[in-house]
């Protein structure tokens, strides 16, 4: 009951936050010099002033900033994300197309990183100062310091060009007409390298954090107490330490989960993965404001929702938490 009230309260307070984000995004975006018409005309290499005026009129850029804002908010109130004039299509359909591949990549990478990171951190902490610890610490340090794009390119060189095991890029084999499990396997083969190069960074982060967190908890008085009561080391670890050690992981994961929807521009670019990160980047480059604002809006909503979920998780992990 208390939980339901808490969630309800958070949802209500989220509304002004999101509205504020919309306003701020809108204003910030309009601070950037240049507009979509001049970029489009620039890419064409030629244009007449009349043609550019017509483009600006079509894009709604000839209206005052206030009018543009009113139009935008009216659209949003009607649950419409607007129209991407540059791409000549609805913003929502552009985003929906990318949502699947983005979630697939990010959830795979993030899930793998989280699970493996926790396990490796635990293994390193329980075997502190043994070879296990040294190897895991060293590997995670290297992984943490390696740029994702470099790792990605190296994987392409070795796994695709030299060994020919995996396709270099893309979401699936275009034109192969694969169906059912064959298609799933095909997408999986394309997913391996981008997910791995993305996961490695997060994995290193979680492994290091988990190790530190577990070590910190094992020094606590309650562990000594538990040990004095004669509990087994395994029981101390799973029943007491793990629960507490997970709290910082949940906090960090919650913050980073907000990036999920944003995708990863670098990894998407290297592997030609059709994600939202590159969509947002291109929208920014071409001043496709409706599209950019929509991506910001969805990201903001997701961050708010994930924060609520994280708070709920705190409740379950640590009943002492108060709202």
């Amino acid at each position, binding site marked *: 009951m208390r939980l339901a009230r808490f969630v309800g309260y958070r949802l209500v307070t989220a509304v002004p936050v999101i509205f504020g984000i919309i306003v701020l995004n809108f204003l910030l975006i309009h601070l950037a010099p240049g507009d979509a018409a*001049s970029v489009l005309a620039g*890419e064409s290499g030629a244009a007449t002033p009349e043609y550019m005026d017509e483009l600006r009129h079509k894009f709604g850029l000839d209206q005052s900033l206030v009018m543009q804002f009113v139009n935008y908010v009216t659209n949003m109130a009607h649950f419409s994300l607007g129209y991407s004039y540059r791409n*000549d299509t609805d913003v929502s359909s552009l985003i929906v197309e990318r949502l699947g591949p983005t979630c697939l990549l990010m959830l795979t990478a993030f899930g793998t990183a989280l699970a493996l990171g926790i396990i490796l951190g635990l293994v390193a902490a329980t075997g502190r100062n043994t070879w296990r610890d040294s190897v895991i610490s060293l590997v995670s340090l290297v992984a943490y310091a390696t740029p994702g794009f470099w790792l990605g390119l190296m994987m392409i060189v070795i796994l695709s060009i030299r060994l020919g095991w995996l396709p270099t*890029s893309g*979401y699936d084999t275009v034109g192969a007409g694969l169906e059912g499990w064959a298609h799933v396997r095909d997408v999986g083969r394309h997913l391996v390298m981008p997910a791995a190069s993305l996961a490695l960074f997060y994995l290193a982060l979680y492994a290091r954090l988990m190790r530190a967190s577990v070590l910190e908890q094992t020094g606590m008085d309650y562990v000594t107490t538990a040990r004095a009561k004669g509990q087994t080391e395994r029981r101390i670890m799973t029943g007491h330490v793990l629960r507490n050690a997970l709290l910082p992981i949940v906090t960090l994961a919650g913050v980073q989960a907000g990036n999920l929807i944003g995708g990863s521009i670098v990894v998407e670019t290297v592997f030609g993965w059709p994600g939202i990160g590159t969509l947002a980047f291109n929208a920014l480059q*071409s001043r496709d404001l409706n599209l950019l604002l929509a991506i910001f809006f969805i990201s903001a909503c997701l961050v708010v929702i994930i924060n609520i979920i994280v708070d709920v998780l705190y409740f379950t992990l640590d009943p002492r938490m108060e709202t």
Partner: protein
Amino acid sequence: MANDPQLNKITRRTALSLPLGLAASSPVVSGFAKAEEKPGEPVRGGTMVMIVQPEPPTLAHYAVTAGSIPLIATQIYEGLVTYDWDQNLKPHLATSWDIAPDGKSITFKLREGVLFHNGKPFTSADVQFSFMEILKKYHPFAPLFLADLTGVDTPDELTAVLRFENPAPYLMKALAGRDMPMMCKSVFEGTPILQNPSANRPIGTGPFKFGQWERGQFVRLDRNEKYWKPGLPYLDHIIARFIPDAATRSAALETGEAHFASYSAINYADLDRMKSNPILDTTMKGYEMTPALSVLELNAKHPPLDKKEVRQAIAYAIDRKVILRDVMYGYGQPATGPLSRLFKSVGFYTDDVRNYDVPDRLEIANKLLDAAGLPRGANGMRFSVHLEVNSFGEQWLRQAEYLKQALATVGIDLTLRSEDTATWLRRVYTNYDFDINEPFLSQGVDPVYGLNKQYLTSQIRKGVTFVNDSFYSNPEFDNILLTAMRESDHEKRAALYKKAQQILAEDCPLIWLIDVQYVSVFNRKLRDHTPGPLGPQQAFEQAWLEK
């Protein structure tokens, strides 16, 4: 003039254009020179994957000419004519043409039995609508190429007469599908042209039909079963793939995932590796009608760049051979003046102009600057200016870094400024808040395009990109260009353009750096991919894949 193209046959030219040898010693010698003849019977079927970079924003080929659109759109849309290797007109949608003695009208006889992808027959009404309602109103080049077009008469279904206010010799090289595509009237009629859904689902007469567009991934084109050339095209599908990262694009060719990449899709730096790969080869053919120069634009409103001597000194101070070697990896040639060498074959190019590439160029530059009243200061520098770095790729930053060094040797302190495309274009072409700009200029198929747009007084148009932003204004020169534009006699035209190039080289409103050479990389299994001078910007109807 009106004979049908030989269908179904590989011509001698196309066979020759197939480079099949091993890597050559010099990077500049392409596959063409080392070609060893390897005849083969074309096979039907197969899916060709080509790399297109960047992903086009739309396929509205008739209203937006952004670089990568024609690579896809010319598979779908066709023009009235096409061109042979000597850039002579070749029949295509029109079987013959007749230019009136006064040059003010051209009568096209149209091919019978051509169908649009929606099943509608192609008639003179489509020609009229395409020219008058779409191209003349919305094509970015229309103010140059179609300004004199007053109407299109349609005496019968298969005859279209283009009428002009003045003779339009410059149009004769711009009638292929790349520059003047033919659209279906019934698709556009009664709708706002720019909002037409065919922007993303084009309907043309070409050998390939639009299939599917997965944004961020690929466009799929399907074989047009009812194409008017019997038996063609050979391929079942063409997939245009979009891969944002340059290294991955190269990798996709090396693994055989992609068969073809053109223009700047593959970095010059990677080309040597591509050539040494046994499954790949390269060619420089197919760019004969795509002249382009890299240049510097000098803002004559910003002193001391208003002085001719200062502009000339900058032109002398730059060693184009260094740019060619270190920035362009040897692909291209040092530019000698305002026109690309590609205009040589049609008689318009001349190198009989002020030569800035002389052994004592640094002494001359220093002398000119001294004479302009710009002595070196305490730090050895005479004056400071900003260079706006081209945002379309990192090679331009490398070029800018060289320019900074080169100009410092004659006492000009260059500060580099890199901004994103929208900011850069706004600063240069709308706010005119720049000293030196570093653009890359496509020169079109006729001097009218590259010269008129860039140097006419009337082309100083605030807010319009890639026009006269150096404030060059010379009434005598304007006169020559406008006369040359309408001169039907080729010899007289050529003489006028020679004079124009000499005046420009002397006045030096721009500094011409490199005559650009593009390169196509292809898988050796892909054959007959470059059948004419428009190369990747014409349809792959004759291309086929070895089994």
